[in-house]
């Protein structure tokens, strides 16, 4: 895992020691470990010479910048109307059953977090979800089972 300081310095090199570097830094850390914790935010604040509260205020605005701990694979199920019409509830139920967690939770082994998301822009291929940055479409309970198994095997 890349050091947080490394990510910060890397982005500062590109964007300058300016506020404009904030989102890229936050995104860089999220890409690395799926969430940003207190210490990370304090470190960012120091690096950019802004207040830690400002970092938190900005981070908490964006749904893809999590500030609570998430698993290695963050699942975001689209909850927009068309995905709902195409059977999102069944998909969500299948995920909850498969992972044995409720919506919003993370598995004990810290592998999976199950979240919902607003429109993913895959309305013609619903129900859809993201696992980290990859999109999965035309979902059904069987497919969900296969996908989760795939990721379980990956991280073995």
């Amino acid at each position, binding site marked *: 895992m890349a050091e947080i300081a490394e990510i910060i310095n890397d982005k500062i090199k590109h964007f300058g020691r300016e506020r404009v570097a904030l989102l890229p830094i936050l995104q860089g850390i999220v890409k690395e470990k799926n969430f940003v914790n*207190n210490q990370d*935010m*304090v470190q960012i*604040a*120091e690096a950019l010479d*802004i*207040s*830690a*509260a*400002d*970092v*938190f*205020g900005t981070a*908490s*605005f964006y749904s893809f910048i999590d*500030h609570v701990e998430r698993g290695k694979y963050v699942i975001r199920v689209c909850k927009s109307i068309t995905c709902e019409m195409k059977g999102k509830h069944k998909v969500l139920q299948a995920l909850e059953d498969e992972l044995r967690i409720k919506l919003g939770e993370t598995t004990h082994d810290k592998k999976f977090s199950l979240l919902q998301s607003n429109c993913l822009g895959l309305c013609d291929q619903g129900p859809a979800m993201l696992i980290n940055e990859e999109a999965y479409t035309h979902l059904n309970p069987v497919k969900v089972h296969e996908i989760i198994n795939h990721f379980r095997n990956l991280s073995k």
Partner: protein
Amino acid sequence: MSNITLTIDGQTIEVPKGITILEAAKKINVKIPTLCHHEDLCVAGNCRVCVVEVKGKHRLEASCAVPAEQGMEILTNSAKVRIARQDIVSLLVSEHNTQCTTCYRNTNCELQDLAAEYNVDGNRFLSVLKPNIKIDKSSWSIEKDDSKCIRCQRCVRTCAELQHVNALTASHKGHEMKISTFMDLPFNEVVCTNCGQCVNRCPTGALTERRYFDQVWEAIGDPTKHVVMNTAPSVRVALGEMLGYEVGTRVTGKMVTAMRKLGVDSVLDTDFSADLTIIEEGNELLTRLKKVLVDGDKSVKLPMITSCSPGWVKFIEHMFPNHLGHLSTCKSPQQMFGALTKTYYAEQKGIDPKDIVSVAIMPCAAKKYEANRPEMNASGYRDIDAGLTTREFGLMIKQAGLDFKNLPDSDFDSIMGQSTGAGVIFGATGGVMEAALRTAYAVVTGRSVPFENLNITAVRGTEGVRSASIKVEGCLPEWKFLEGAVLNVAVAHGLKNARVIMDEIAAGKSTYHFIEVMGCPGGCIGGGGQPIPTNAEIRAKRTKAIYEEDMSKPIRMSHENPEITKIYEEFLGKPLGHKSHELLHTHYQKRHRH
């Protein structure tokens, strides 16, 4: 700047280009309601209660945010506007904890006023107040109750723009949007300086000072306790606002009488310890100058910076922890007063210090926190038992049912009740500097400062950072090393400006010898414990009153205060002496920045 012409409610006016519709309306006394708008802060345009109709536009415009333009026809009171405003106020009420009767800001709340004006029906909309909101009472100084918050972000802007502390932020979005500290940590764990400027600008009861007047009433009612009250200089020029007086009215004599009527055993003056601060701090400065200029002692830091403002002290501890050596080691007048109350005063009066309850009436929120700093117990007891704001004190007077306006004037008790004009001006930005210069110059040269009526106008005013240079000539023999030296001094008020000064110091570019910093805009007259509202005009009137009070004093230099002479003779020995060091000086600690 060119002018433009527009009409507001049928009235044609000419205004300078660039001002907002709200400002234009104000010029012809058309009142437009506002909530998120505050004269001290940048435009937010987020509450939307100031909407007006601009002819030709379907949508209403937020008058606080939209510039007046040539030829605009504006209606501030059309049916469309009234309905919209009523809706908006109703919406705010629907997410608000409407238990007004038990709110500290009851009858002094901007949302309450608007709800009354628009006769808002509380059942119009469903309540969307978030359940189970906990009040944050972790801080000694400030309480945060999100159930009263209307999310106008005045506090956020205050903390950022005026104070550069940024302890507060808007967090989350949508229906979850709220005002937060870093990670919603309790107030006492974050960078908050307790200055209370957010409290002064909060339109509702979401941010208030923590109240301690019940404890004071209890002590007053306890026959075994001897209650000593001292009041800061700026309280006497602002208290009147709580009690029906015009802004800027001095009520010193009535205030003293009122305290006695409350049942306080001894009514004393923080101005006395302000004078004492000048002696200690002035000597500290001269000592530092000698160590640096004559002895070449590198461990001694210049410029020396004042330490009377506890919000400022906490600010430097958080933001510039490696530069604490610049702070004067003098305690603030409040804490000097407390330490002496339980030693010198107790001794002189023959009272067991354990039976003394020392109460400070302050223009300040941070003073509550300062009183509770663990190290503030040099007397062997809590030096100050309770710090109240001007607002709490005003409330106590109301609770006691005193007919304040018809109270006779009276004088402070003795000892520790006598003060000079120099002590008084501590209440305004530049005052400590001026008081220090009056005394230091006299000590070093044996003559008065070369300014008419002792008024050092160069350090007065409202500029955020002001500076002056004084050439020291004709020194007495013991101060010969200062002969011909040019003393560079600066004054900063509001923590935004304190940061400017500190950035210079941190960069090694400061050429000053002595700096006064006050945490609040305007100094203590604009303190976080003063009556609400505040704005530049109000602060100017209180400042004027402070300088009037100074001029009314027979003695105007701290070292000429007879009680000061007496306390050194009878108790302290000499400035910076052993006892002073023990009781009147303190140390600081490094703090984190979040």
